[in-house]
């Protein structure tokens, strides 16, 4: 039975909510300059700590900067890091997981050992240590996060490639002498489809979370606005009332992005897992 995975994701309530949230955040990030007349670092004319008003939807912070503007520009950093890590990490996962499955033998065992070992390493602390030595910027952050997040995906892709390897079209290509890169690009990746997307969503979610957490600790690109950094600054002023329109909306924007990603990921995974699909009568994927 052929199942249209995407159709099921769009049908399920969780999937709808997730896609909506992701779309919302992407729209905020893309249209940031249209949605706000200010720039995120501009010191506006309003007094510091002013309450939300028509000119400043979320008020201003201690440096008279518009909080709403910072919030939507912060979405750019989060989404850029999430998207960058998802792409790079998926690329490494396919390269390692796919080739491990195709070649097998010692090569396979070597990489799987590395994968098992890396999964047990506490990634936040490794990044903190590296960032303590090097000046953190967005590119370094994407590289580091990808270096620590590919193993999970590599394991899934290896397992998937092992079954794909036995299919007719792959065997046919192999008899014609196709190399591993040809096999990967023309035969394995197209068939991975939704699974690959599920892995990328998971990686992106983790990356957005980590970027916010690290910048909350003060490890962030000094030239970029970021939700974690905003929360770090705002946290100092909890004795004032400003947290209601500074700290909370920022945290909520971050949480909603993460929720959007995990809802979509969950809907996708339940659509992919035949055991979880069609349980109760008239029940379609997820809830």
């Amino acid at each position: 039975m052929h199942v249209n995975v995407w159709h099921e994701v769009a049908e399920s309530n969780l999937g709808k909510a997730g896609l909506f949230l992701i779309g919302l955040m992407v729209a905020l990030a893309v249209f940031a300059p249209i949605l706000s007349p200010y720039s995120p670092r501009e010191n506006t004319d309003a007094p510091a700590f002013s309450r939300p008003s028509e000119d400043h939807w979320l008020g201003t912070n201690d440096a008279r900067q518009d909080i709403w503007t910072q919030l939507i520009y912060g979405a750019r950093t989060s989404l850029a890091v999430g998207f960058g890590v998802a792409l790079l990490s998926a690329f490494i996962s396919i390269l390692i997981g796919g080739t491990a499955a195709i070649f097998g033998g010692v090569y396979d065992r070597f990489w799987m050992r590395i994968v098992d070992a890396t999964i047990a390493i506490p990634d936040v602390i490794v990044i903190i240590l590296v960032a303590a030595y090097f000046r953190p910027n967005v590119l370094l952050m994407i590289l580091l996060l990808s270096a620590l997040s590919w193993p999970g995906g590599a394991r899934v892709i290896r397992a998937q490639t092992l079954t794909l390897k036995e299919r007719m079209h792959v065997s046919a290509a192999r008899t014609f002498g196709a190399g591993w890169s040809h096999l990967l690009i023309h035969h394995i990746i197209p068939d991975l489809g939704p699974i690959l997307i599920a892995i990328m969503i998971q990686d992106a979610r983790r990356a957005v979370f980590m970027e916010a957490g690290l910048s909350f600790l003060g490890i962030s690109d000094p030239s970029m606005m970021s939700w974690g950094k905003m929360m770090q600054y705002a946290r100092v002023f909890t004795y004032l009332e400003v947290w209601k329109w500074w700290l909370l909306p920022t945290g909520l924007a971050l949480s909603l992005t993460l929720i959007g990603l995990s809802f979509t990921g969950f809907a996708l995974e339940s659509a992919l897992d035949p055991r979880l699909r069609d349980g109760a009568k008239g029940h379609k994927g997820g809830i």
Partner: protein
Amino acid sequence: MEDLQTRHLENPKVGWNFEKATARAVAVLRRGAFFSNYLIAFAIILILNFALPRMMPGDPLQAIYGEEALLAMTPQLEAELIARLSLDQSMGQQFASYIIALLSGDLGHSYYYNQQVLAVILDFLPWTLLLTGTALVISTLAGLVLGVESGYKRGRNLDKTLLAGLMFLNGFPDFFMGIVLLLVFGVVLGLVPLSGALTPYSGLEGPHLALDILHHLLAPLAALVLVRITSSYLLTRNTMITTLKENFILTARAKGCSEGQIKYRHAGRNSLLPVVTATGLMIPHLITGALFVEIVFSYPGVGWLLYNALLTRDYPLIQGILLMVTVAVLVVNLLVDILYQKLDPRVSHAR
């Protein structure tokens, strides 16, 4: 023992048995491979700790101890440190002396606390253990129970509410959940203390001290549990859904087992294995979550220590924490693997 002897009598094959010997050899190898994961992870951290400061341009001593420490540096101390770290020798010898120092429990010296790194970490460790330990147990157990109930009622209102609600909570990063709880219950309602793990200089003893500690623990613990409950919940729910379709559940129903028995003794039990495995995989995330939550609540654990080390650029301390946390994660994973073998009769009989 008796079992073995009777088996010997029934099947008196004296001497060397090729099949058994290979099976045993394979088992030993597998056990070795199983440990080697932990060894590799540990080695990666060791190499990272060793190589990072030495890769930096400039004076390695500065990279190892941080700029602040060098303010108090005398030529005598400098000579001593260079000798201790073998910085005047080859990389190989430097690595050897690094390992030897580690083996004797010397993780370096923290200039900010003016104490051995190990001693500093051990001072802060109990609070982190208390926080993560209780969070792990509570979130796993609650996840199991909620997952069983939700999976049993799949597609009904209870299931839908729980699934959406817990997935929603899971979206919150630990530190934001901590901030929200701190603001609501600490700042607005004044129900929980804003920082610390106990009231300083209170002179409390016995049960009062325990209550005070619990009072301080409540909010950080709630933040961790609310976010972390979802993974064991989802796994249990998924396992419940698949298990409930199996024939033995039909048999149990036909026998007239009560709902509670079917839910927990027949179906729920099957969720234990995946949940235990996932718990092992979740521990690094839980520990990092705890680090963030500690920072939000100024809870004097390793996370708070790490944050301060980062602010004061106390490099030896950051490295020491990385090493200790990795060891902790690996040890817990090892314990989980052993527990897994005890829980799953198939694994232990395969030996």
